[in-house]
């Protein structure tokens, strides 16, 4: 009895030794990681699925081939994780693929590295580089429909049509967030794209109040903007040109998308503050904005290049899915305006949805 107890004590001791050693190793691991990574590595956070495949084929592979820098591609840019990494001073991501709202919010909170000048050919960029962000591409939001059920003339083509339930009866979708939706409401009410900002918030909510009964789903998850149309759950849907392009190509649907009027959002690239591989990250940003890789990347994943010289390099089929950037009907989301207004407006919008 006594012997067995003794043995159990020594066992416990050795057990403690092993476990504390392991715990210490685990705690030290992040630091080991970063010091090793400083040489020839890069961590890129981008979106999943086809999108990620396009980024890897069109951008990451040629980048590694040219520079020898190994790129770890991670899924799903998440601002909460950025905040956690920066506030705990344990930054593990380098390059962040940020939609407008996230890019602006990160700039607002000081989560991004300042971008030095000379990284890009500024004359070639359709939208200027900002202090913390470089525009990567634009995506076109607009009206999608099924031409088999709603032939030419029967479906809305502009946002004014979309908000005109009398002329175009049918079930619609809108997003469950203030950003984009408030813009759509104002454009739908006849505001000219040039006069959109600052947004007339009160007017936008009045317009939304009127359309509410015809909105079948306030969509939270972006893929649902397409699946609802595919299954006939809604008659028209507010979605994105590249999503419809991918659906028609990969799922052999035959959906239509109106380019008569689009609301264009900007996707940015940013470098996290104190990123472990800052130099490589800046190299990557510079590489991603070169005309040939802007073209190969957008060819692979959809989206409109920011580089002017990339357009002639795109295939005819890809150009068909891009909005005309010069058209007066098309509007651009103003991310800087949103940076200061996002929180109160999103809160008000959610409250309005629940009422």
């Amino acid at each position, binding site marked *: 009895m006594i012997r067995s107890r003794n043995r159990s004590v020594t066992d416990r001791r050795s057990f403690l030794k092993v476990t504390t050693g392991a715990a210490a190793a685990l705690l030290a691991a992040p630091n080991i990681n970063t010091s090793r990574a400083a040489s020839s590595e890069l961590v890129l956070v981008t979106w999943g699925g086809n999108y990620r495949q396009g980024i890897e084929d069109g951008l990451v592979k040629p980048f590694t081939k040219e520079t020898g820098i190994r790129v770890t591609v991670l899924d799903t840019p998440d601002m*909460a994780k950025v905040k956690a990494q920066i506030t705990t001073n344990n930054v593990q991501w380098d390059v962040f693929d940020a939609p407008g709202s996230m890019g602006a919010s990160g700039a607002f909170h000081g989560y991004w590295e300042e971008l030095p000048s000379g990284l890009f050919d500024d004359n070639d960029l359709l939208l200027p580089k900002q202090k913390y962000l470089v525009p990567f591409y634009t995506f076109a939001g607009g009206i999608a429909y099924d031409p088999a059920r709603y032939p030419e003339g029967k479906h809305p083509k502009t946002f004014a049509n979309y908000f005109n339930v009398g002329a175009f009866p049918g079930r619609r979708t809108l997003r469950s967030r203030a950003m984009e939706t408030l813009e759509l409401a104002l454009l739908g009410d006849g505001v000219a794209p040039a006069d959109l900002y600052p947004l007339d918030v009160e007017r936008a909510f009045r317009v939304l109040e009127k359309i509410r009964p015809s909105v079948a789903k306030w969509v939270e998850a972006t893929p649902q903007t397409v699946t609802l149309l595919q299954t006939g759950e809604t008659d028209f849907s507010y979605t994105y040109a590249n999503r419809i392009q991918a659906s028609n190509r990969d799922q052999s649907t035959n959906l239509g998308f109106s380019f008569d009027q689009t609301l264009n959002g900007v996707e940015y690239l940013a470098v996290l503050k104190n990123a472990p591989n800052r130099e490589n990250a800046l190299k990557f940003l510079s590489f991603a904005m070169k005309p040939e890789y802007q073209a190969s990347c957008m060819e692979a994943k959809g989206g409109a290049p920011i580089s002017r010289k990339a357009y002639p390099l795109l295939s005819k089929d890809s150009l068909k899915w891009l909005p005309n950037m010069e058209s007066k009907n098309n509007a651009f989301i103003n991310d800087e305006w949103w940076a200061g207004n996002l929180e109160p407006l999103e809160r008000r919008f959610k409250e309005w949805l629940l009422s």
Partner: protein
Amino acid sequence: MVTSATRGAGPFVAPAAILSLLVALVPIAFILYFSTMEGTSVEPFRTILKSSLFHRAMTTTVVVAFWASIISLVLGYIVALHLARQTARRRAALMVLVLLPFWTSILVKSYAFTIILGREGIINSFLSWLTGAQVALPLIFNRFGVMVGMTNYLTPLIVFPVLASLLAIDPALYRAAEVMGAKPIRIFLTITLPLSAPGVLAGVLSVAVMALGFFIVPALLGGRQDLMLANLVDFYTREVLDWNIASAVGVTLFALVGIFAIPATLIRRTKGRIAS
């Protein structure tokens, strides 16, 4: 009865207890810390108490969790009763069927329900074919859709504890009742139901606790008004990046779980004492 079972359990329970302490209590402590502005003020709680967004989400959460638990209990109890009456081999096969939806990703299932419940989904197309008229029952993007998605996920969690209780009932009791001339309904009400109560309690408790934290089902299958507290936590964590408020909502959700869990544990303990 309870004490004899618990005596000497310490060393066996300790590793699991220490692990859960580390992986659960430490983060919870951090959330508490954040919700009080690093221990300096209760402002975040004051803010959410004044927010109508929070009040609505809170009401929705409690109502949805309540009904989802009740419906899952009724459905799960029937399944468990049926399973208890099968031979062991058949029961094992049927149990796999119960678990099958449980193993499927909730995200995939939620998309699948769009195809089943949609306006032109399987149910509505079948009804249209049957009646010869266009039927489009609103089965989705409302409270009904949320209930279907949630009970589909939660029912197996009722089946297993209830089944364990049912199988533990001494078959001699049934025989004795039959010999005495009791009708099936009376046997059910005086033997089956009271003796399966511990399983029911355990099942409903775990289901209610899970139901309070549902997130993806209300987002995909719910209507605009089906916003639950977990969705609100997500909104403040990822969109607004206000972690003090997010933590305050999380603490409230946690307290809500406690309100469900503590009385149930107490009831169980007194029951055990009576039984012993």
